């Protein structure tokens, strides 16, 4: 009889379709164990790599990637990145702990707890894709200079190319942005990327993109004179060429450079084969933009390689910046900023651990400058600005998990107590 049942089971297993097997695999414990093991290993590798690569590069390689290669005992091994592992874990949890699991209102704890984990994973996805982060520099008010007002932030580590159209008065009309996701990734030697948009009457061919040409002191170590560039076979524009310099561990010190060629549109999807303009672009500073300018017909355009910028839905004005030094030194002990939200007149005092929150944005007191300023020098405040729609979600997810686990363990406790009572009664009855 047992043999017959076994044969039946074998038969049913053989009859399972590939889809059913895939479903079993993706909703099973085996995949969960594999993924959690990968997460453990990647967290270890990613943490250790920060010593060698720095925070941002290690984070990019291990935590934001689909795949990566890791040298384990001298052998390069292809591993899934945390992004892919997290996505698979989300799928695995959804199928295994929500869809496939036997659901019963008498045992809701685990279902709630797993929903909380899924919520946190989803929060990570939203934060990764939709967070905007940057800094805003506001100088102390000084006469007619308007640098104490701003409605733009710039990211310290991400770079973008901004293509701007100007009106006949030289005023900016619109800015098209080639973002870090379109500009980043691997730039193999000789590779080019051509950027197009139906609203732009030309295409921009970007070639020889270098992530860094500066050393840690802000000097253009990778800038080559005409002779140096010729000797190295590097393209020369306006008497200069560029070569890569090893990236700094602190990503904010990296300064990218690239060559661009502009090709006019001659049809809906056709472009001239001869470029109308070419330039060598070097990453520009946030306070005094100096873009490459050219004309296409009657229109004036500019292209700028710049730290990624965002325009905020509101503007801020610095009313007063206070700094208190350690006694006898020029080292700041405490600093804070009194700011005004220009459109509404709302006044806020921003200091350490006391950020300003408005329209989904959070403005923290980050630093001040310029470094080494003497008494009487005009100072600026640097506010770190963050917009993360999922800012509070991990906290809520943790509450959900805690509620689920509490329900589960309380139920377990009651059922244990019930069983104990029952067995005690049985023992008393038997006596």
């Amino acid at each position, binding site marked *: 009889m047992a043999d017959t049942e076994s044969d039946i089971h074998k038969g049913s297993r053989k009859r399972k379709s590939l889809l059913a097997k895939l479903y079993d695999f993706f909703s099973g414990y085996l995949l969960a164990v594999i993924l959690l093991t990968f997460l453990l290993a990647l967290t270890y590798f990613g943490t250790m790599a920060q010593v060698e690569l720095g925070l941002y590069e290690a984070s990019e390689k291990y935590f934001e990637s689909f795949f990566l290669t890791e040298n384990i005992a001298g052998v390069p091994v292809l591993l899934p990145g945390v992004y892919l592992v997290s996505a698979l874990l989300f799928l695995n949890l959804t199928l295994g702990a929500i869809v496939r699991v036997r659901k019963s209102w008498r045992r809701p704890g685990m279902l709630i707890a797993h929903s909380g984990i899924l919520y946190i994973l989803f929060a990570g996805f939203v934060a990764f894709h939709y967070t905007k982060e940057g800094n805003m520099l506001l100088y102390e008010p000084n006469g007619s200079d308007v640098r104490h007002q701003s409605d733009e932030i710039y990211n310290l580590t991400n770079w973008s190319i901004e293509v701007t159209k100007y009106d006949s008065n030289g005023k*900016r009309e619109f800015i098209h942005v080639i973002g870090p996701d379109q500009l980043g990734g691997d730039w193999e030697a000789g590779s080019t990327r051509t950027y197009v948009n139906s609203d732009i009457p030309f295409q921009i061919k970007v070639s020889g993109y270098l992530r860094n040409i500066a*050393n840690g002191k802000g000097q253009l170590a990778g800038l080559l004179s005409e002779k140096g560039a010729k000797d190295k076979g590097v393209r020369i524009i*306006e008497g200069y060429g560029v070569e890569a310099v090893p990236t700094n561990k602190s990503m904010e010190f990296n300064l990218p450079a690239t060559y661009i060629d502009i090709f006019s549109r001659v049809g809906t999807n056709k472009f001239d084969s001869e470029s109308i303009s070419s330039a060598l672009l070097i990453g520009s500073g946030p306070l005094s933009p100096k873009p490459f300018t050219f004309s296409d017909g009657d229109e004036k355009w500019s292209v700028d390689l710049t730290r990624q910028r965002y*325009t905020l839905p509101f503007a801020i004005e610095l009313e007063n910046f206070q700094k208190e030094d350690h006694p006898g030194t020029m080292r700041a002990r405490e600093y804070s900023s009194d700011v005004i939200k220009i459109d509404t007149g709302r006044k806020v005092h921003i200091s350490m651990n006391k950020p300003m929150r408005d329209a989904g944005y959070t403005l923290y007191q980050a630093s001040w400058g310029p470094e080494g300023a003497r008494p009487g020098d005009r100072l600026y405040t640097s506010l770190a600005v963050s917009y993360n729609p999922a800012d509070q979600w991990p906290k809520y997810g943790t509450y959900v998990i805690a509620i689920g686990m509490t329900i589960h363990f309380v139920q377990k406790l009651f059922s244990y107590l019930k069983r104990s009572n029952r067995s005690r009664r049985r023992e008393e009855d038997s006596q």
Partner: protein
Amino acid sequence: MFARIYSLSLILILGLLGSVSCDRAEEYVEIKDSRTPGRFSPTPQLGLSFKDRAGITSSSNSSPESSKVSFFVKMIGPKALIDGEKSRFDAFCKTLKVGKGNPPFEWTKPDEWNAAEGTAMRIANFNFGPDKKGECYFTVLPGGGQLLANLNRWRSQMGLPDATPEEAESLPSRQFLFGDGKYVEIEGSFKGFGASDAEDGYKMIGIIMPELQIGGPK
């Protein structure tokens, strides 16, 4: 088991194929993002040449964000100790030169000094003497300020009043790195960073080479 391995391999291969573009050399990308210019954003300077855009003067290769660099070497400690170490300070300064590496400087450490860990500011960092009370370090700062500002910064560390521009200019010159720096020798009560009290009988010697436009592109 075989089916599971087969399924997993299939997914991995498909994933790999999906991540590898057919033609890496030439790629076309649609520009999707846009933004309106901020009302208070700085007005861009248009029509500039590459040199002006990059902030390159005829004799500099600094970045537009920091076109000048200042160099400092400083030795500080109890007066008697510093007087005894002067010859080693001179010897160290003579060995200091531009070299390979990042930051691109080389030097020879006097045998009697201890190498301390460098910091973001201190490229070469040493201590010496009883209780390691003597210090010597070499600093490079983007920008870095004028001679008078730096001299007065040092003087304030020694509890001395500010010098006048004439006094700063009249400081003796000393061959240092790329050219002549200004040699400083002052005595006073030194108050280090974070210290609550000043220590009397201290001496500071050093060379300031302020806001140097360093050479053209290599």
